[in-house]
């Protein structure tokens, strides 16, 4: 940590390399051959339902769990024989793990016990760390008397004071109420940019992952299903499972007629259309498939509205309307499709919300569709 390379170079270098990392308990596989790189200085999230192995992977990186197979290296150094207390990682625990018998100051300075620097230097660093997380002047308080949000901040300061190469966060916001959580999300993001340390966040909250991360690894059953930027993950999910886990996606049964740079499709309710090969994140092949789209990529047209210049139009009936103030959520039954599709639209002054039962046209941009050629789930 003597000299830091240029930001661009720092971003490019993998800080953590995982090569076929496995973890099993008896014949239960918690992690299956995970191979991936985590880059220096990025905010990386492990997202998945409970039991998908995301916390296990985090604990393997921290050194609290031994990996059963494969290799794990941090900063080019293999971690196999490095115990948790010697790894360049620090962790913020789900329960915060604030030492209840110590003061805020003693908690934050705990990691400096083995530091050879002077008492004054340590006190200064503790004060700096407390200021960084917005707890200036709280040093002398008893740790157990703090609120949830304050404990969270103490845990952050305690982990960051050692200037780790990687900060590991195990569902750090799950115990906070909604308002506090939203505030901490943006604060954490700012803090990460400010200190430039690699953050690895474990969460089951897709919204949280989308808001905070540079890259997200979506995990199911011990495997990384997709590793992408939040936008790619949302726009081009690799499978129906990923698509369903992140936000809402409508699916329509479809048939692939021909493949190539343009894929010809027959989609129930939308008719015969062509899409770019880029819109199929998997391998396109002819036969039964399904097409997905996000609720906000379709528009409900009013009577007299011109049809969009690019894109297409389909016929449908409004089955349900939910008014949310700034937004309206429609359930529209397309002709020839049993299950209604969900469409969300921003409300505009002068355009009243459509009534239930009204016939309507819906318009979409061709680029909004995603083709899933996987066998039907």
């Amino acid at each position, binding site marked *: 940590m003597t000299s830091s390379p240029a930001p661009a170079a720092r971003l490019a270098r993998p800080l953590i390399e995982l090569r076929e990392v496995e973890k099993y308990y008896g014949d239960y596989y918690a992690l299956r051959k995970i191979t991936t790189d985590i880059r220096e200085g990025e905010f990386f999230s492990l997202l998945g339902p409970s039991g998908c192995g995301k916390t296990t992977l985090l604990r393997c990186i*921290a050194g*609290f769990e031994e990996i059963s197979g494969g290799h794990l290296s941090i900063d080019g150094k293999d971690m196999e024989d490095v*115990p*948790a*207390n*010697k790894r360049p*990682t*620090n*962790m913020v*625990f*789900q*329960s915060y*793990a604030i*030492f*209840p*018998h110590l003061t805020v100051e003693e908690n934050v300075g*705990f*990691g400096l*016990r*083995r530091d050879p620097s002077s008492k004054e230097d340590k006190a200064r660093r503790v004060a700096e760390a407390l200021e960084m997380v917005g707890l200036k002047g709280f040093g002398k308080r*008893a*740790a*157990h*008397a703090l609120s949830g949000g304050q404990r969270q901040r103490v845990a952050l300061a*305690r*982990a960051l004071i*050692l200037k780790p190469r990687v900060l590991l966060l195990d569902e750090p916001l799950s115990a906070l109420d909604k308002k506090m959580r939203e505030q901490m999300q943006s604060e954490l993001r700012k803090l990460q940019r400010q200190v430039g340390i690699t953050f690895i966040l474990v969460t089951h909250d897709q919204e949280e992952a989308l808001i905070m991360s540079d890259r997200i690894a979506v995990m199911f059953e011990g495997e990384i299903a997709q590793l992408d930027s939040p936008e790619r993950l949302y726009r081009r999910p690799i499978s129906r499972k990923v698509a369903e886990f992140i936000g809402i996606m409508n699916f329509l049964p479809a048939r692939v007629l021909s493949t190539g740079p343009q894929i010809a499709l027959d989609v129930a309710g939308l008719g015969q259309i062509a899409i770019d090969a880029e819109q199929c994140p998997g391998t396109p092949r002819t036969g039964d498939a399904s097409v997905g789209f996000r609720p906000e990529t379709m528009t409900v047209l009013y009577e007299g509205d011109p049809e969009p210049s690019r894109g297409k139009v389909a016929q449908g009936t409004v089955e349900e309307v939910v008014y949310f103030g700034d937004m309206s959520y429609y359930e529209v039954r397309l002709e020839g499709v049993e299950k209604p599709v969900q469409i969300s639209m921003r409300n505009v002054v002068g355009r009243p919300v459509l009534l239930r039962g009204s016939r309507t046209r819906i318009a979409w941009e061709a680029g909004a569709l995603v083709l899933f050629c996987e066998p039907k789930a």
Partner: protein
Amino acid sequence: MRGRGFQIYAICYLIFLYAPIALLPIFAFNNSTVISFPLSGFTTQWFSQLWTDTSLLLAVKHSLIVAVSVSILATCFGVFAARATTRYAFPMKQGLMGMIMLPLVLPDIIIAVSLLVVLMQMGASLSILTVILGHTLIATPFTIAILNSAFQSLDKSLEEAAIDLGETPASTFRLIILPLVMPGIISSLLIAFSISLDEYIIAAFLSGTEATLPVYIFAQFRFPNKVPVIMALGTILVCLSITLLTIAEYFRRRGIAKAGGKDTGGFL
């Protein structure tokens, strides 16, 4: 008038519980060797006799050595067992714990007889050392029960956090675990101490010539003129117990307040 019956019941219960103990100081200061009313006069001679009775002082010394050793030994074993059961999984855990806890329900007389047989077979001579062994055996299940709950309430991530911040498992135990389970350890020491101090059966079988206090007291009842001295001794012991318990409770409450936990029981 609802609840009047319960009030009377509670008062009767307390009288039944404490009246015999209240008799101790009354007869300890009574100027007569006969334990009966009416009282004949005030004296402190029984207390001064205590200090000159060398065999009694020796029994007190034996009992203190035994009780202190037992409380430390049983608490150490209790810490090991509680730590093992609350943190680690190992084969036969349930069965092993059941066997360790068994002396809790086993009649003391059975333990005493079997220990005596084994010690005789081994050719060991009876002394306070053998009493310490026997008392540790019966006190350990109690200390495990107390310490288990203390260790169970520890959040595992506290340990992991300390290790994550660079501490070794040993220093983590010293800096984090020990301070947080200290109230449990103090309770455990006290319980083991008091179990050992008033235990009679095992001590009677295993003490040989080195009688502990209960064994000595029981033997003294054969001599009626010794009874008032025993009353004086009992008075001192009651005062000592109350003082000890008060101190322990003070530390326990202070520990809980410091750790921010909720007070769930205790002695007082």
